[in-house]
């Protein structure tokens, strides 16, 4: 268990290969600041894999990823993970939140308070009794964020959380992400959308073909990219690398 701050996140010589393909190649990075860190890159760059490792869902072949000198395991309540496509239990919105709290043995008396908060923050109060699987796409993603938020984590990891949403859905989720970051929860999220990175990021990890190309403050990244690859990506020249 982690009692102090989860930061710094230290990534050292992290490498993963699967079926002969180098998916992450000697990634080194140090994330020490609060706010929103965006992992940016084209499809197949290794963004999701890096995020999975950060939550303990996958293990690296070589190297390490440490939260304040601590190797992550998925069942730690100080850290939450949001998938691009959520899967909900065949229960009401409220029961889906209760489920997570019960998994982490939060006392019943505290559960209702946390659930009220999460529903209020995400605007799902009216829908709390509805079956989670009958929600619209935008509502489902709000519930997905609420489910991660309900444990009041210190870190939230989001994997392409808006990739399947319409523009108003994207705006809502981005607003939520900002709100969560303002409450001192560290956000790390992946996206392949430059516009989204521009709107949200404090700093950017730019990945390409499993390699970390740059890790710079967002302002620097967008105004004067250090590498030609980053410049190409910004200019829309760097395409799919499957």
């Amino acid at each position, binding site marked *: 268990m982690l009692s102090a701050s989860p930061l710094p996140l230290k990534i050292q010589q992290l490498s993963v290969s699967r079926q002969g393909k180098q998916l992450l190649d000697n990634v080194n990075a140090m994330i020490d600041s609060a706010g929103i860190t965006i992992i940016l890159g084209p499809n197949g760059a290794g963004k999701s894999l890096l995020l999975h490792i950060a*939550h303990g869902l996958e293990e690296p072949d070589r190297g390490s990823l440490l939260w304040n000198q601590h190797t992550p395991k*998925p069942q730690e*309540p100080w850290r939450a993970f949001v998938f691009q496509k959520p899967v909900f239990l*065949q229960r009401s919105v409220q029961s889906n939140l209760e489920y*997570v709290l019960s*998994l982490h043995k939060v006392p019943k008396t505290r559960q209702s308070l946390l659930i009220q908060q999460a529903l209020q923050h995400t605007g799902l109060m009216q829908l709390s009794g509805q*079956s989670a*699987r*009958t929600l619209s796409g935008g509502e489902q993603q709000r519930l997905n964020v609420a489910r991660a938020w309900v444990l009041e984590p210190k870190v939230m990891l989001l994997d392409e959380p808006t990739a399947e949403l319409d523009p108003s859905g994207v705006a809502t989720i981005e607003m939520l992400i900002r709100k969560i970051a303002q409450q001192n929860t560290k956000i790390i999220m992946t996206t392949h959308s430059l516009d989204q990175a521009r709107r949200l990021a404090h700093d950017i990890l730019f990945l390409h073909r499993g390699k970390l190309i740059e890790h710079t403050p967002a302002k620097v990244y967008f105004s004067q990219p250090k590498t030609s690859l980053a410049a190409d990506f910004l200019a829309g020249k760097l395409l799919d690398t499957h």
Partner: protein
Amino acid sequence: MNDFSQAFLKAIQLIIQLDPDLIEIVALSLQVSLTAVFIAGLIGLPLGAALALYRFFGRGLLVALLNTFMGLPPVVVGLVVYLILSRSGPLGALGLLFTPTAMVIAQVFLVTPIIAALTRQTVMDANDEFHAQLRALGAKSPNMMNTLLWETRYSLVTNVFAGFGRAIAEVGAVLIVGGNINHNTRVMTTSIALETSKGNIELALALGVILITLSLIVTSAVMSARHAAHKMYT
């Protein structure tokens, strides 16, 4: 066609009259098969779930056996149970042969593989859907299994009733180990076999109609319960 319409009339007649012999036969059929399905469920549900979720030595062999046993001919099962329970068999001293208990035992052998194999498939599919998400939420192995079983409960009930369908309809096993003794081990299917061989086609058909009707009632009850539950939380 004439046979069928007469059989229907006869069936209705038997039911309206509440023929005591008929009631006894139907009651014993239900008692034997429901007991067998209950026991098979107790074994088959956890076995199927374990086969879906855990890797252990001999798992592949067990799955292959299960799938083979799903299609076991009831007469063969009957014969094996007969040999085990007969006077000279390993459990002969219990004196169970030609009792309803023997029939329950035989049907447990028939139904358990069906429930276990179907449960394995159901839980495996659910695991594919839920595993990554539940793990990311912090579920550990026991939480995961409980959640998957609860999420699939309607399908699991349907699987159990698929087992019931096999039990109530089979004749080979109960005939061999029960012996079709009047007022003792006579059930619907063995009566049908007997009446047919005696040439009482009408009565046999009437019993057949009742058997099918019973199955229909049970199946539609399960289906509508499942449908209602599904509508509540999809």
